[in-house]
């Protein structure tokens, strides 16, 4: 038995993280219980199974569920088809700008879905960039593609959103996979194709499955993309149906019972995901291909270049066109575009005239206030949770599981819970929004902090203790400085997620609290795309600024 294990057996577990964990669980469980309670009541607030029964026997429920699963499956397959070649390239080749590509591939984790929707409409829409280019190329007067408002649009948008996630997760695993078995197979006479089929693919499969499950979960819980790009009753998923029932039909119990059904399915998915995660081996040996080789043949170079250009156009294109479109205006539909700050002036109330809206300042102020509060609260919360989850044992693993729980419950359902809560207690809406965002965002921050906390060698703590530092001093002088960078990354994640959060905020406050994503959603709804683009650009710039500030705050990596 190793000394470290003995050490952990000998001393009582660190209980510092428990109070914070309890608070978070309460913040998560109260709205959940309220939602569940609502599912078991009738219209008058008495206990009844009739609502649940009605929902479960309604054929609409089942057709919505089938559609939800269908679009999630198709989206996952599409993401896989686009993301896997990228994962191969990233894991096996060394080229200029690789780090940038890797960094960009993490953006979808924090990219607000409303921005994706907007970029999609601007880029792929009937009057979008792609159609304009194709119309000019082929001298056509009609749009070449009719993408929007269909299952195809949803799948494409999801693929665009999620393929970088597949690329990122699979390539990270692939990169660190021990390459000696493959080399051994080659020396034993297997062809490259054979090696891939018999050695590489089997060991890669768990990571592919795990990434796919995550993407499936994301697509299942997708909200803004369905709401805008689905465009009608034919494309309704569980999440949008819950929102419509709650905020449009004002049928709380029906929304709650749908939420219950939806939650059961996502919990099954999440358990599957966790089981897969456990199967992924952690690679600590140095036989990995981290350094890769440069692409050698002309053929591979060309293929990589083509893939890179296509991904750049189809993934970065929509986001860039949002920014570009926000600075342009066209006097008429066919006239050429001109550079202009018209939309910003309008939104920020700087232009005089009837079309002035002062909404942008309010939205920016609200969004920054909420996101900063959530980010600042998340730092001490993550710190104490991570230090508790660091030790192995039942307490740590249950804390970690609880930290994952909010992933099983979609942000729409969390918003719904807080909406029910808000109707019962008198609290200021902002507080509830901050709490809801906290519950949604902290699991993501923990994903950055907990692995770092686990990496701190036990002997650093032991050495500091033998030099005369007590437990609290060790935490302050050794552990916190070592966790600083991951805490900043975590807080940055939380900030970005909160800044772009639409689902819970919309379900909870139904646009009574104007945040940037909510106002963008309203502008898209009223076909003011340029205005939405301008706000989207403000959102991107705010996120970028915070990202730059947090990078500047970080110290150098050690080791």
């Amino acid at each position: 038995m190793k000394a470290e294990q003995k050490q952990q057996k000998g001393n009582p577990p660190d209980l510092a993280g428990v109070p914070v964990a309890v608070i978070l669980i309460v913040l998560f469980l109260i709205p959940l219980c309220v939602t569940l309670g609502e599912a078991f009541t009738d219209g008058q607030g008495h206990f009844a199974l009739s609502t649940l029964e009605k929902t479960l026997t309604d054929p609409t429920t089942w057709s919505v569920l089938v559609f939800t699963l269908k679009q999630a499956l198709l989206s996952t397959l599409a993401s896989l088809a686009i993301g896997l070649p990228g994962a191969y390239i990233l894991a096996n080749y060394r080229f200029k700008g690789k780090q940038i590509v890797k960094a960009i591939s993490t953006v979808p984790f924090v990219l607000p879905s409303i921005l994706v929707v907007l970029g999609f409409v601007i880029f792929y829409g009937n009057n979008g960039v792609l159609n304009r280019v194709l119309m000019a190329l082929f001298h056509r007067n009609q749009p070449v593609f009719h993408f929007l408002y269909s299952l195809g649009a949803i799948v494409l948008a999801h693929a665009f959103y999620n393929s970088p996630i597949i690329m990122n997760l699979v390539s990270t695993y692939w990169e660190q996979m021990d390459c000696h078995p493959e080399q051994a197979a080659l020396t034993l006479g297997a062809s490259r194709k054979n090696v891939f089929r018999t050695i590489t693919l089997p060991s890669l499969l768990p990571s592919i499955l795990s990434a796919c499950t995550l993407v499936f979960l994301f697509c299942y819980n997708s909200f803004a993309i369905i709401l805008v790009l689905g465009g009608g009753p034919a494309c309704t998923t569980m999440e949008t149906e819950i929102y419509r029932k709650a905020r449009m039909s004002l049928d709380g119990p029906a929304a709650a019972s749908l939420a219950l059904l939806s939650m059961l399915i996502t919990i099954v998915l999440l358990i599957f995901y966790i089981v897969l995660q456990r199967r992924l081996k952690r690679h600590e040996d140095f036989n990995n291909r981290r350094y890769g080789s440069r692409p050698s043949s002309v053929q591979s170079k060309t293929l990589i270049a083509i893939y890179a250009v296509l991904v750049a156009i189809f993934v970065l294109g929509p986001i860039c066109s949002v920014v570009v479109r926000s600075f342009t205006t066209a006097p008429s539909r066919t006239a050429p575009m001109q550079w202009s700050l018209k939309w910003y002036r309008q939104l920020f109330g700087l232009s005089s005239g009837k079309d002035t809206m002062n909404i942008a300042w309010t939205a920016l102020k609200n969004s920054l206030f909420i996101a900063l509060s959530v980010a600042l609260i998340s730092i001490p919360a993550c710190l104490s949770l991570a230090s508790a989850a660091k030790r192995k044992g039942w307490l740590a693993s249950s804390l970690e599981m609880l930290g994952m729980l909010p992933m099983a419950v979609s942000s729409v359902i969390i918003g719904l819970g807080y909406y029910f809560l808000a109707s019962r207690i008198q609290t200021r809406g902002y507080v509830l929004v901050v709490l809801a965002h906290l519950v949604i965002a902290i699991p993501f921050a923990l994903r950055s902090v907990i692995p770092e906390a686990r990496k701190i060698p036990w002997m650093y703590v032991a050495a500091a203790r033998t030099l005369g530092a007590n437990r609290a001093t060790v935490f302050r002088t050794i552990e916190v400085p070592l966790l600083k960078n991951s805490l900043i990354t975590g807080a940055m994640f939380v900030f970005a997620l909160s800044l772009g959060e639409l689902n819970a905020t919309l379900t909870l406050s139904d646009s009574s609290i104007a945040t940037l994503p909510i106002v963008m959603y309203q502008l898209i709804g009223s076909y003011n795309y340029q205005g939405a683009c301008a706000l989207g650009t403000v959102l991107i710039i705010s996120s970028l600024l915070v990202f730059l500030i947090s990078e500047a705050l970080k110290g150098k990596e050690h080791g």
Partner: protein
Amino acid sequence: MVEQQGLVCTLKASYPDFSLDVSFSVKQGELACIIGPSGCGKTTTLQILSGLLKPDKGSSILLDGIDILSLPTEKRQVALVFQDYALFPQMSVQDNIAYPLKLRKMPKSGRIAKVTSLLDLVSLPGFQKRKPGQLSGGERQRVALARALASEPKLLLLDEPLSALDTKLRRHLRDEIKRIHDETGVTMVYVTHDQNEAMAIADTVIVMNQGKIEQMAPSEELYNHPKTLFTATFMGDGNLLPYSIITQTLASEGNNYVMFRPKSGEQAIFFRPEKVTIQADEKLPLPEFLPHLEFKNATLSSCIFQGSYYQVIYTWNDYKITAVAEKRPKGLNATLGVRLIDILQFLDGRAVKV
């Protein structure tokens, strides 16, 4: 009772697959080495002494007459140097060494002076600004040593401090540690699995096996008069033969074996390679008159060049006997002789007084 300065301890601890039960003392200013195979409880002993592990009831640790068992790690004044250094990666060398000084609220000027003198002591002058990542393994271990000394411990524990380093550096640093011990006079307990390291620096060597102390003595005594077969084989090379061959084979060859008293149980004889004399010409008598055990008609099976000497391995009646020679032996056959006073006898693993 006179208070004994230094360390006096009895440590008991049990784990599912291993239990520790040791009792030893180290005088103030002494350097004791704990040596034993991996898993024998060396590291556990150090961790209990430093308070990182809690021992079972019945244990006691007295340091300069004070019971420190109930004290938490940080109050024990027991520093520990780790095998993989455990330097804090985010801090410079200066900050690492000054860490215990800051904890004691030493003013900044005092800290700078102290760090400078400690860096001089470990032969790393001018290394203050470097980060641990910029140092070699040997330099890191010197910094770790300086940091441990900065806490002015009453007892300094070193847990295989050199085993991550290459051979040449290990020897050099080993002598440095001995020098630093002599200069500072701090009581040290040094854990290693390398008997050469232990013999070179220790005032006292504690041989451990399976959670128990086999023998505790100065290294010469351990080497020449091991109390157990384990100590004998662990401390250096040796030839181990069953006792039965002496009564069966050697008796028929007219050896003088009266000194060996046969007993029941598993009995064995043991002698060091350098005690074996090689007589290539069988007709000549062995050069000394002291009673010898003779192994006639031994056949040379291999001869390994070791630099200053040759390790020569002979086969005699299906047994291998290792000897040491200054020159490569000429003939294939030889008579090997061992003086009876150089032969150790063991009965069931314990030394038998002859």
